[in-house]
């Protein structure tokens, strides 16, 4: 591990009874990256983040975060990280201002430094007119901005954000991501979990998680490039019927209806286009065009592959 590595974890595993939430996960996050965790609910995103923060003890595996061995040095690490929980976790019965000054004192910030910092953050996250408002009465977007302000108050080097935008509208999500990139610009490393494809696409690197394992990782471009010639757009007058017809065609991984057309993800071997056209002729005819892959295709391909592997006898 060198100075350029923010997080390095190997063989990270967490079991809750018989349930394996995180299964031998290896992860390296470099400094100043905006690293994304993309995965469905229950894929182990939150559990992994909690272990990296030192809030959960791993069943096995080694973690090094900012040069601290976790969970052993978790308390020392807490001075240098910010953790934004999935659920709004500031006090709803305190005002915006009170929440921030509480967090400043909890981080032992000297009063003289805390006040200007709070003013700066209130300004930066457009909370000026909500200053005296109870946090519980803020809108979803305002809550997220307040939570982010509270998380970065003590200028942490590394931020963990667990599905930060799951409860806000698209406009707020866009603004929120602008703030994240600003923080990254200032040198903060960010680890963000999400189940939104468009958010994952914004990350500098990302890992796709499925059932506690990383099934694909790399830059979004790299991941998209791994699916050449495997995605097709089917235009037909009867999409529902065509979808049923294509569903069990060998070589087809997934068929999704997008408006009036179908998006087909193939396994990548052989003459899928011809076989698609042949099958579609039986159901009334359609056109099949190649199309550029998107992250959803990457996600589906990666999870199907991992589940296919899991079904094979050991």
């Amino acid at each position: 591990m060198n100075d350029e590595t923010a997080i390095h974890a190997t063989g990270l595993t967490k079991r809750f009874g018989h349930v394996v939430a995180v299964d031998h996960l290896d992860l390296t996050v470099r400094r100043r990256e905006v690293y994304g965790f993309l995965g469905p609910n229950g894929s182990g995103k939150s559990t992994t983040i909690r272990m990296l923060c030192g809030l959960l003890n791993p069943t096995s595996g080694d973690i090094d975060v900012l040069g601290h061995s976790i969970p052993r040095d978790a308390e020392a690490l807490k001075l240098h990280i910010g953790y934004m929980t999935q659920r709004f976790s500031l006090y709803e019965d305190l005002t915006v201002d009170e929440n921030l000054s509480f967090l400043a004192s909890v981080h032992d910030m000297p009063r003289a430094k805390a006040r200007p910092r709070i003013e700066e953050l209130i300004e930066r996250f457009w909370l000026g007119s909500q200053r005296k408002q109870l946090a519980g009465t803020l809108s979803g977007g305002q809550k997220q901005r307040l939570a982010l302000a509270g998380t970065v108050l003590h200028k942490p080097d590394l931020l963990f954000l667990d599905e930060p935008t799951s409860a806000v509208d698209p406009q707020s999500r866009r603004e929120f991501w602008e703030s994240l990139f600003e923080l990254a610009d200032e040198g903060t490393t960010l680890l963000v979990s999400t189940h939104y494809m468009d958010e994952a696409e914004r990350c500098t690197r990302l890992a796709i998680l499925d059932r506690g394992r990383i099934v694909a990782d790399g830059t979004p471009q790299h991941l998209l490039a791994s699916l050449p010639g495997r995605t097709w757009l089917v235009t037909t007058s009867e999409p529902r019927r065509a979808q049923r017809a294509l569903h069990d065609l060998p070589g087809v991984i997934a068929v999704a209806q997008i408006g009036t057309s179908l998006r087909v993800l193939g396994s990548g071997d052989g003459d899928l286009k011809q076989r698609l056209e042949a099958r579609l002729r039986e159901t009334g005819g359609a056109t099949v065009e190649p199309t550029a892959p998107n992250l959803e295709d990457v996600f589906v391909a990666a999870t199907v592959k991992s589940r296919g592997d899991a079904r094979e006898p050991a």
Partner: protein
Amino acid sequence: MSLRRLGSIVVKELRQLRRDRLTFAMIIGIPTMQLILFGYAINLDVRNLETAVLDQADTARSRELVAGLAATGVMHIGHVASSPQEVEALMRAGEISAAVVLPPDFETRLERRDRPAIQIVVDGSEQVIQAAARQLAAFPVRGNQGWTDATASVEVVNFYNPERRAAVNTVPGLVGMILTMTMVLFTAIALVRERERGNLEMLIATPVSPWELTVGKIVPFIGIGLVQTTVVLVLGDVLFDVPLRGSLAELYLAALVFITANLSLGILISTLTKTQFQAMQMSFFTFLPQILLSGFMFPFAGMPKPAQYVAEALPLTHFLRLVRGIMLRGADITELWPSLMALGIFIAIMLTIAVSRVRKRLD
């Protein structure tokens, strides 16, 4: 431990409390209501026992005696019976709890003093009334020495509560009861609430330490406990004229230690439970032995040994000794040091276990 961090928790708790109107109302409302209810209702004195008189003698002396009995206030003579059967019927129906029977040869019996001149029939199905009957048996009847000398009084000589007013005994105990019920609950839900609302996950990701968190949650409620103590004491003085024979400062010192003991117990409950509901259930579970065994309801000396050992471990037992000693007997707190020390040990044990259970981990 950082004082700034500790202070931030205290300030935060007070701010939250200020906005929690229901809890705020309970701080003053609960002690007031309980004091008024218990102060007036818990009354072990027997007064106004419904009584019938069957005066078969009907002489000047017998009438004087009946008037004397009525004057004690223990009996309320509401029925005049004309036959023993009528007395029996009244008692069976529950109309009366006692009857005074004066036989036709009342005068002769008084002269000869060979047989009881008066019979007091009581309803034995009620313990308290039986006890009252024993008092009535002590009613002075001195034969022909003249009734007026025997100023009828069934009052038992009573050292610290000469008027035998129950409120004098109940109010000091009520200070303890009220503090037990409110203080334990306040802190029992304190940590659990943070967990339920998701605040704890945020909090444990900060540098705050278990001691700061635990002590910071207790400190604000000490002030509230002292406010409640004041409410009960002032009302006790105004409504029931309960005396304070010892030092007021010492009384507050005892209350302070007792409040801290209850808050420590509460915070321990908070670390043992997962939801606010569980915390409340567990708090109520600790109330029952305190009410029953501490000496609040039943005299400590009358309990079997094993129950006394259990009672020694309860904070209310020790507080009752302190508060009764200071308020009613005018004792000096230094004379009551074993109880003060017992409370100190209780606090130390509860807090240590609680802090060791506050893990900055989610699993």
